[in-house]
């Protein structure tokens, strides 16, 4: 018995050392933590329960039979984040470069299957050189198994990917199908083909950082949802995100004690919208002043800044926020902003997170680049996402709600539950000037008449009342009481139930 215990201890120590002290030092030297250190930071202290510590690969090609490190390059198991269960896998770059083998993939699949069965999020920490080439198709099969599980888990449990090293080739498609991707600046990158191949094929000279670094993916490609300075910060922020998310699609979003009066009045909001309709203002101020304790977890902060998405809490409960940002491109909807918001809305709907929409939108961005880029179908994504969402939906129009964009932004017509408007709201087909130039084309040469027509149009439509008379706006509310009104609205919707007709699944214009 004692021998067995000694062997167990010996095997455990060996497994914990991963690729050995030298490789651990080299990992640290690159500013990266080891797979186990990352798990430690991600989970509550002492809560990690490991699976498959002694799993080894079965490959005998190319001398692999002589290298059989315990664990096979990935640490898997479950633990808690602030007491709530999550499953985790963390690739170990010190073991065979974190390369994915058949068994490595199997370990990941095991915890993903358990996550789906037991209803807890999956958090994957990616730090892998890619497929284990020695294994050939077995390795690819492993990827495939993981992909299929990503798909099956999608919408069942939240899936979060944290890219903390290389993630290249086919490997990118597993994170790509998860709900959120976080990256670490300067030490992580993602691409389908690396700089060398790019150079050979297209003759483009590009660094790994430029091709697939955190900056590229948070600002240009929108593949990643946020980037952080280092591993420690990234993992702390993942913990913070998990605090917002439900464990699965049958659980309610989490609630936690809060220290902020839901009826808090913010008189400063009465002056948020400037007198001049063309002057921008910062929609984030409104979000922060509505949110419990001013706490806002922004998703895709650096991409398509003309729309804002992220999580807040109201009365301690998670609410997803989508808001036009007048500070950027006047808050216009375009391809990027529609895609960004659509994906966020669909995430919220999957996981029963109520959606608060703040509207100040002058319309869709015109131009050939938009039309050629397919703004019709991309814009339709957001429209579709809002329309199919059955979670509680509360909308506040602060200023412009023009044209088709008005309908898209969680209007009454898309079955929003509460549609509020500030007194500064203007619900109209377009701005008064544009409308006048169409309606009164005959008077275009007479600036005096046009001015009068414009004023008439403004008087008629540059207000929330016409829409209120139709019932498209439920009530005109004072800006200072927005937090209170919105919080009460969501409180009244806690037992909302809506059914969509049976279907296999919808056919959102992808």
């Amino acid at each position: 018995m004692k021998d067995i215990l000694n062997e167990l201890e010996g095997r455990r120590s060996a497994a914990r050392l991963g690729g050995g002290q030298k490789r651990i030092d080299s990992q640290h030297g690159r500013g990266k933590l080891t797979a186990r250190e990352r798990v430690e930071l991600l989970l509550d202290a002492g809560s990690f329960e490991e699976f498959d510590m002694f799993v080894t690969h079965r490959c005998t090609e190319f001398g692999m039979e002589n290298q059989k490190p315990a664990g096979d390059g990935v640490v898997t198991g479950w633990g808690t984040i602030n007491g709530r269960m999550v499953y985790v896998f963390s690739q170990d770059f010190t073991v065979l470069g974190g390369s994915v083998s058949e068994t490595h993939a199997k370990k990941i699949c095991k915890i993903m299957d358990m996550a789906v069965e037991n209803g807890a999020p999956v958090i994957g920490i990616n730090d892998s050189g890619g497929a284990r080439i020695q294994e050939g198709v077995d390795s690819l099969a492993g990827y495939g198994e993981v992909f299929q599980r990503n798909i099956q888990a999608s919408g069942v449990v939240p899936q979060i990917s944290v890219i903390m090293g290389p993630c290249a080739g086919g490997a990118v498609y597993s994170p790509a199908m998860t709900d959120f991707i976080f990256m670490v600046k300067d030490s992580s990158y993602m691409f389908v083909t690396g700089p060398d191949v790019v150079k050979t094929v297209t003759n483009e000279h590009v660094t790994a950082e430029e091709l697939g670094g955190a900056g590229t993916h948070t600002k240009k490609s929108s593949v990643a949802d946020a980037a952080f300075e280092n591993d420690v910060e990234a993992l702390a922020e993942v913990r913070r995100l998990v605090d917002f998310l439900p464990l699965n699609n049958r659980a309610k979003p989490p609630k936690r004690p809060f220290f902020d009066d839901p009826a808090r009045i913010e008189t400063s909001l009465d002056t948020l919208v400037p007198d001049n309709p063309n002057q921008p203002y910062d929609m984030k101020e409104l979000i922060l002043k509505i949110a419990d304790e001013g706490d806002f977890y922004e998703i895709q902060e650096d991409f398509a800044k003309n729309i804002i998405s992220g999580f807040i809490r109201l009365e301690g409960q998670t609410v997803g926020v989508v808001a036009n940002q007048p500070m950027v491109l006047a808050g216009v909807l375009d391809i990027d902003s529609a895609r960004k918001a659509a994906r966020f809305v669909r995430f919220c709907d999957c996981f029963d997170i109520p959606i608060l929409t703040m509207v100040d939108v002058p319309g869709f961005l015109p131009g050939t680049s938009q039309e050629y880029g397919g703004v019709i179908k991309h814009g339709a994504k957001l429209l579709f996402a809002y329309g199919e969402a059955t979670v509680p939906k509360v909308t506040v129009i602060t200023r412009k709600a023009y044209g088709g964009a008005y309908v898209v932004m969680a209007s009454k017509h898309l079955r929003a539950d509460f549609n509020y408007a500030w007194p500064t709201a203007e619900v109209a087909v377009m701005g008064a000037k544009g409308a006048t130039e169409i309606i009164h084309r005959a008077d275009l040469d007479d600036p005096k008449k046009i001015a009068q027509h414009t004023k008439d149009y403004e008087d008629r439509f540059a207000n929330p009342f016409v829409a209120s008379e139709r019932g498209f706006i439920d009530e005109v509310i004072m800006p200072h009481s927005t937090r209170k009104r919105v919080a009460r609205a969501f409180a009244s919707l806690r037992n909302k139930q809506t059914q969509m007709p049976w279907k296999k699944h919808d056919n959102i214009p992808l």
Partner: protein
Amino acid sequence: MFKKILIANRGEIACRVIKTARKMGIATVAIYSDADRQALHVKLADEKVHIGPPPANQSYIVIDKVMQAIKDSGAEAVHPGYGFLSENAKFAEALEVAGVAFVGPPKGAIESMGDKITSKKIAQEANVSTVPGYMGLIEDADEAVKISTEIGYPVMIKASAGGGGKGMRIAWNDEEAREGFQSSKNEAASSFGDDRIFIEKFVTQPRHIEIQVLADSHGNCIYLGERECSIQRRNQKVVEEAPSPFLDEATRKAMGEQACALAKAVGYTSAGTVEFIVDGEKNFFFLEMNTRLQVEHPVTELITGVDLVEQMIRVANGEALSITQDDVKLNGWAIENRLYAEDPYRNFLPSIGRLTRYRPPEEVVAASHVVRNDTGVYEGGEISMYYDPMIAKLCTWAPTRGAAIEAMRVALDRFEVEGIGHNLPFLAAVMDHSKFVSGDMTTAFIAEEYPDGFEGVTLAGADLRKVAAACAAMHRVSEIRRTRVSGRMDNHERKVGQDWHVSLQGQAFAVKIDADPEGSTVTFEDQTALRVSGDWTPGDQLADMTVDGAPLVLKVGKVTAGFRVRTRGADLKVHVRSPRQAELAAKMPEKVPPDTSKMLLCPMPGLVVKVDVGVGDEVQEGQALCTIEAMKMENILRAERKGVVTKINAGAGDSLAVDEVIMEFE
């Protein structure tokens, strides 16, 4: 008494006057420009009259428009505040013609004190001490030496046409006077084409000390002590106090009596201020007289108990002063800090925009101390580019100077201003500066103590420990709340530990927290312990804590995985971690921020109108690089030095945030 008074001003001073008028039962009329539609003074006044577009020269200082507003509103008197029309003799005259009382001095006094030469002449005639000097032209070096000896060294030799320090020499003896005369003359001839030279006494260790006078139309004139305003930045006063820590009773009396003599010599009525420059030996010399209410009048009010605005209104109403010189007793100490919308980290560049948060400290009137805040803005209001960047005057009073300074430190810590750049950190730094604390300052204080501008405050050891202890306690509270989230596994909850590691300002402290219902005892590695209490809850932006028995007020914000804490002028990122987290965090590489000296950063959020250069262009210092439109204003960004453009990151139509990199240079 008047039934209705119009305040021909805006901002805090208009609000200040309205307050007293209301106390006296007088109705008030505010005037406002387009930019001030929503301003506080307009909200406070009983009536309001619109007087034109935002620029002051099209509204507040257009006499005809103000006169029309007076006529329309039926006001019987006008208080001009300071600035704008307050020292405009034509305005005083227009009021006289219209039969409306001017709450200020007679126009003759305004005129004679408004001119530097005339006022000096009148002062000399009234036996007021003026800076000795020779105003005539000086022929040669011998004469220069003779005159210098007569005046007494040190002397300043100045070019008559001089400016900007050119053609100016200081001489401490005959030798230097001879040399100085020659070199000044040469420099003046080459720089200005005018080699006329004059000599005056050079005042060493100069302090700016001024006397508040109050006179009625019945021949009474009293002085209400002095104010010291030596802490100035480019002649803009920043900190004032009363009394001065420098004056003795005899000097005060001499200055006060001379000030009254001058006031009488010009037939002065109402409140006025006689400014002196005082040297290290307490010799004082007349500078000028301000024929209006001064910005810094509250400190005098706080130590004398006299409401100067009320007195001005009564005097304007023809009443005799109800107080005599003997009634004026200086009680305790008062300090004023001017809060400017100027970013101290960007060389005090004016900052405009929306006040997303504006929470002044609570005003207090107690025997131990007084906190008074004269303000013209409110949360959600707009700081516009059209007017003075001063947004509030924070004053404290206490029986002693030390206590008044301490009250000010706490009041500054409690003052929450967000949305614009402001000088609160700088003011806090001054309040902790040893020279200010000891009262040993001159008008060169800011230039000498902050020669390279203001770069923030580094907290000293004991203060840093207090902040560390408070943050550890706050972090623990936050973490405990996090463990109370719904959906957790029963019986497998996260336990929040006692041991923490606080890193801030490049230092780290390992602490242990023992919490009880009243607070926490935070023990450091060296076994010293600090007791921390306070009712801070997560999300509070102001933490009013007691650490080690003393108040510690922190402004608390969020940074990634930590707190942003501001206190006593310091702006810190604080990370509180478990020992294991800290151990791993220590392995993280130090990221050096990119060298921005070779980049053009966007100084304000705005839209790129055009980029004037291309990659590879060589640019010269001062060359236009790019135009940014912000707040409807086009700002041309120019090259700070010669260089070659290597990369351009923005194009016309892009909208940029502050500090976004527009282009990079070789």
